[in-house]
């Protein structure tokens, strides 16, 4: 509104009319704005109408859009999980059926014919279980992990069922900070994870200049935070920026670029496991910058000045790019190789030359024996996975030390007896367990009570023999008995004493000798327990009328059933969680929408009141203008 001057001495015609015009224009403009609000129904049409509220509206709209994305994800995940649930339901029924058939056919009053027809039923169930494993939902194999474009369970060439999917279960985001898996792993459901030979040794690779910082565990196993460090040597100091450093080589280069100032040089320590810093003269300290943990993670934090520093082990992880020769602090791995047997397939895997871990694993995987060699999740060692349910995997030496060094030999002298024979261990009896007959006809007995490891067994045999007769195989796996005496090989045997099963459990009984050597069996295979193995065992036991086999298989199937039920429970809980979240998001959307509406929409009451006020104001000014503008002295002069 125009402000009329307070010292108004005279009022010119133009003054009068301009005041009237400007106030009319203003009123009309405000009327137009209110009209706009009424017709569009929105108080704020563009952010400048009210920048503060406009910014909030933008945020709210963004939030609604983001939540729509979450709702879509939840709906998709619910569908996938419900198809998982349906297939688990079917599998549960199938397993129950199998246990019922097993318990019905276990008695001694059951005929062989009955068992044969039962075996046919189980065979059917076996094939059905494979179909369950290959369930598809909208083109995805739900048990395939992140390889779900192909069937995860295929029939292996050497019998059994081979798992060719992965166990990487996909996750997705279902709300702010809510990331959940929406698949179930085939391993979990079908019990195929039991077939993994977990490497028992940490491979502790040495670092090279090419080792990436991302591949380091860091001195405190918390990874490496890439920040800056400060090296102080007496009066001189330098801040080294490592935030864009990618490898150990980069760290060394950058520290050495400041040698002119700090007189400190960096290099890889002689043991290959850490960094070493040396000062040309004086004593230096290495400190953090800005509360970061870079120096500590690299193992070189040193608050008190020293002349030289051998840093802490940076715990390099094993990656596909790690060189085999850098394992064990640079000591490398014996190149003699492995002897792998899986069911009826065998292969020998050796390596020559400077190869990476990946190349070595590729050789194992290319050997086509139904195994998958991989680096374990923590990046500390290797694992060999038996992919085939129904075959037994055995990994032994090929004349050297490779398998033992890598910790993947399936049977070794240090192994506990309780682990042998798929956990059934070795059954001893009081008194002598085995009787060994030499080629020259002499015999001796060995009492194996008190032996805890295979090494103990070998020691006991050798003590009883009075010579080194027993040893452990250098190729493959097994206890080897060597007879130095003279005589026919047919005389050399190991037999049970006192009806003990120990010899059989150790794989020694009743084996023929060749050139004075009896090579024991590998009684410590890695095989998959699980649905397919147990169903196959049940079927085969029914076919051969093996009551003990039927009972063992039935026990295995009960364990499978429990596991499947528990997975189903977890899946159910997950679906419930998602549904709960979906409801909550929908409610939050309502609240957000109403807030949005209260900010953005026209308050019709206020607007209409404003409209009528302005209307009256406009009418008033029109009328007064008309009256006042028409008065003039000229009218009254004659």
């Amino acid at each position, binding site marked *: 509104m*125009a*402000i*009329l*001057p307070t*010292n*108004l*001495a*005279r*009022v*010119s*015609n*133009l*003054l009068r009319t*301009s005041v009237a015009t400007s106030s009319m224009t203003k009123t009309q403009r405000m009327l137009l704005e209110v009209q706009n609000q009424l017709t569009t129904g929105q108080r704020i*049409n*563009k*952010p*400048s109408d009210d*920048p503060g509220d*406009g*910014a909030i509206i*933008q945020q709210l709209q*963004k939030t609604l*859009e*983001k939540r729509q*994305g*979450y709702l*879509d*994800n939840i709906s*998709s995940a619910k569908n*996938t999980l419900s198809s998982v649930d349906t297939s688990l339901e079917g599998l549960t029924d199938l397993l129950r059926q199998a246990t019922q058939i097993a318990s019905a056919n276990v008695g001694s009053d059951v005929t062989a014919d009955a068992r044969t027809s039962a075996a046919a039923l189980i065979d059917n169930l076996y094939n059905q279980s494979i179909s369950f494993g290959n369930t598809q939902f909208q*083109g*995805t194999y739900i048990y*395939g992990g*992140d*390889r*779900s*474009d192909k069937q995860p369970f295929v029939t292996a060439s050497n019998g059994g069922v081979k798992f060719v999917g992965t166990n*990487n279960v*996909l*996750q997705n*985001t279902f709300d702010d900070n809510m990331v959940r898996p*929406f698949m179930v792993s085939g391993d979990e459901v079908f019990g195929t994870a039991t077939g993994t030979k977990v490497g028992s040794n940490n491979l502790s690779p040495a670092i090279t200049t090419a080792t*990436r910082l991302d591949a380091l565990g860091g001195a405190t196993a918390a990874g490496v935070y890439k920040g800056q460090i400060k090296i102080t040597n007496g009066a001189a100091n330098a801040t080294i920026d490592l935030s*864009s*450093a*990618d*490898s150990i080589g980069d760290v060394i*280069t*950058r520290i050495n670029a400041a040698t002119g100032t700090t007189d400190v040089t960096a290099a890889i320590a002689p043991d290959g496991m850490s960094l070493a810093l040396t000062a040309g003269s004086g004593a230096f300290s290495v400190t953090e910058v800005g509360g970061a943990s870079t120096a500590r993670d690299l193992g070189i934090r040193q608050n008190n000045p020293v002349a030289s520093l051998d840093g802490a082990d940076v715990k390099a992880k094993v990656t*596909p*790019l790690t060189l085999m020769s850098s394992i064990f602090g640079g000591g490398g791995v014996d190149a003699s190789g492995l002897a792998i047997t899986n069911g009826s397939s065998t292969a020998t895997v050796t390596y020559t030359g400077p190869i990476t871990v*990946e*190349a070595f694993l*590729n050789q194992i995987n290319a050997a086509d024996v139904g195994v998958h060699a991989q680096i374990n999740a923590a990046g500390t060692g290797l694992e060999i996975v038996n992919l085939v349910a129904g075959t037994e995997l055995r990994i032994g030496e090929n004349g050297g030390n490779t398998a033992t060094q890598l910790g993947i030999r399936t049977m070794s002298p240090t192994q506990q007896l309780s682990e042998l024979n798929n956990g059934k261990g070795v059954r001893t009896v009081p008194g002598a367990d085995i009787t060994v007959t030499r080629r020259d006809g002499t015999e001796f007995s060995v009492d194996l009570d008190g032996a805890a490891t295979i090494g103990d067994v070998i020691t006991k045999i050798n003590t009883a023999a009075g010579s080194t007769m027993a040893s452990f195989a250098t190729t493959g796996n097994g206890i080897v008995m060597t007879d130095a005496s003279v005589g026919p090989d047919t005389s050399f045997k190991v037999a049970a004493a006192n009806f003990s099963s120990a010899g059989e459990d150790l794989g020694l009984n009743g084996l023929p000798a060749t050139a004075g050597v009896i090579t024991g069996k590998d009684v410590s295979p890695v095989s998959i327990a699980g649905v397919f193995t147990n169903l196959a065992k049940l079927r085969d036991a029914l076919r051969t009328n093996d009551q003990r086999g039927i009972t063992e298989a039935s026990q295995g199937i009960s364990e499978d059933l429990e596991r499947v039920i528990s997975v189903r429970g977890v899946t159910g809980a997950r679906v419930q969680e998602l549904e709960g979240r979906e409801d909550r998001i929908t409610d939050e959307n309502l609240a957000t929408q109403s807030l949005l509406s209260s900010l*953005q929409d026209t308050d019709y009451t206020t607007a209409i009141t404003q409209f009528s006020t302005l209307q009256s104001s406009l009418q008033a000014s029109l009328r007064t203008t008309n009256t006042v503008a028409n008065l*003039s*002295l*000229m009218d009254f*002069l004659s």
Partner: protein
Amino acid sequence: MSLTGALSIGKTALAVSQAQLQVVGNNIANAGNADYTRQTPKVSTSKDQQFSQNVFIGTGVQLDGIQRQIDEALQGRLRASVSDSNGADTEQLWMSRVESVLNELGDQDLSTQMSTFFNSWSNLASKPQDGALRQVVLQNGQTLADGFKDLKSKFEDLRSDVADRLRALTDDADSLADQLGELNRQIVTAEGGSSGQAAGLRDQRDATLKKLSELVDVHSIEQPNGSLNVYIGSEPLVLHGTNRGLTLREDNVNGKINTVVVFADNKGEAKATTGQIGGLTVVRDAIDATTNRLNDLAKNVIFEVNKLHSSGQGTGGLTTTLGTNAVDDPALALNDPVTNLPFKPTSGSFVVHVKEKATGLVTSTLVKIDQDGLNGDDTTSNDLAADLSAVTGVAASIVGGKLKIDAASNAVEFSFSQDTSGTLAALGVNSFFTGDGAFDMNVDKKLQLDPSKLAAAKNGEPTDNQTARAIADLETTVLGALGGSTLKENYESLVNNVAVTAAASKSNAEASHVVQETLFNQREALSGVSMDEEAINLMRQQRAFQGASRLISVVNDLMDQIMGLVR
């Protein structure tokens, strides 16, 4: 004293009344003229004559001059407020045009397109191998790219509109300055030597000056000879009768044409701070700032998405790929400014995986990128091609400045992962978006032709979704390149900036209008014509004229009588 004295008194009275009537008439005639300054006649008593020893007698009235009722200081303030309000109006008008280009708070704005794009990646993560979902991602990506291009081109259009308007206004200002010079000369000639004022010409000059103030903020200093010197800032525009002239100069700033208003004689900048020209300059700078921010945002979207995508894998491997960004000189380090890459790689490394199709076995090789500027061994494009060719199963070369990578035989395919240097994204290898900014942003044609190459996976498995999830999270990831804000926040602050500027210009305009009207009303109070006042003056002069005529008539009669005495 004689009768003739009385007659001459009557004569002066008549003349003065007539003159005053003329003045009144002039005022009445110009009552509706907003530029007119009311004139009042200055009359004073004529010099006394000595009648006798101690008696002085008056000789009538004389017209000393005609005064314009004007307050020059007030006029100056009024002109300044005119400049302010015109400048603010211009700003408001054009900023609301900028806002309507952005069209936020609607359904089709850029922020919705961004949300839709990132949401579609999140959806893809539910089922990475689904062909339909992949198509949706590609389409949404293209829509987003088109959105950026569209905004950029609309801003370009606005900018050229501003430049056109500036040209027109500068021409107007120039011709007004010419008129001022001309009026100055006329006033000097008309008033030359005398102490009176050529009121009409001065009114015209004031009007012209006011029109010029609408365009440019000027201030003026009157010279003793009556001409008015006009200054823009501290530089003179009109000196006496000469107009220095106003024209445009086109500066090339960072590849952009900036039109600047300059004096025609020395091409020095005429710094207009308000007025329509000043307002347009402010608007142009605001448009430039917004366009730059938009471009930066587009660049960051392109590079960050590409960095994640180029380290990802599709459902199958690659058999051939050609980077989309070319280097000007392949023998120079990749991040050398001469190579002209729109995005600069840093030191780091990436892994190349070569997969035998028959067995599925993968061999990985680390490729190191050194860009630390130390030891003179920074990786060049040629180095990179050589390093890649050294990998069994892969052959690489530089073709037309672009990196071309082929599988060495039909039996293998390759893929990349874990690029910590950003090189693959910088060269446009296995990337999602092409282009270096808001004006040429597109989704890579290769992906549109073969959606299976869309990289949703991170670990090499065909149906992994970690890259898809990472890209979906990009919208809310804090990025160092944006100074610690996220893409979402960055765009929101761009829009908010425009909104706040537009709102501020709106309230500025309102405030300056109030000031202008107040000053105008003050001026009117002093210089405006009041018809009633003039009517009274008219009556007064009428009576004065009548009185004078009566005097002359009476004196005439008396003179006749005296003449009658002489026969």
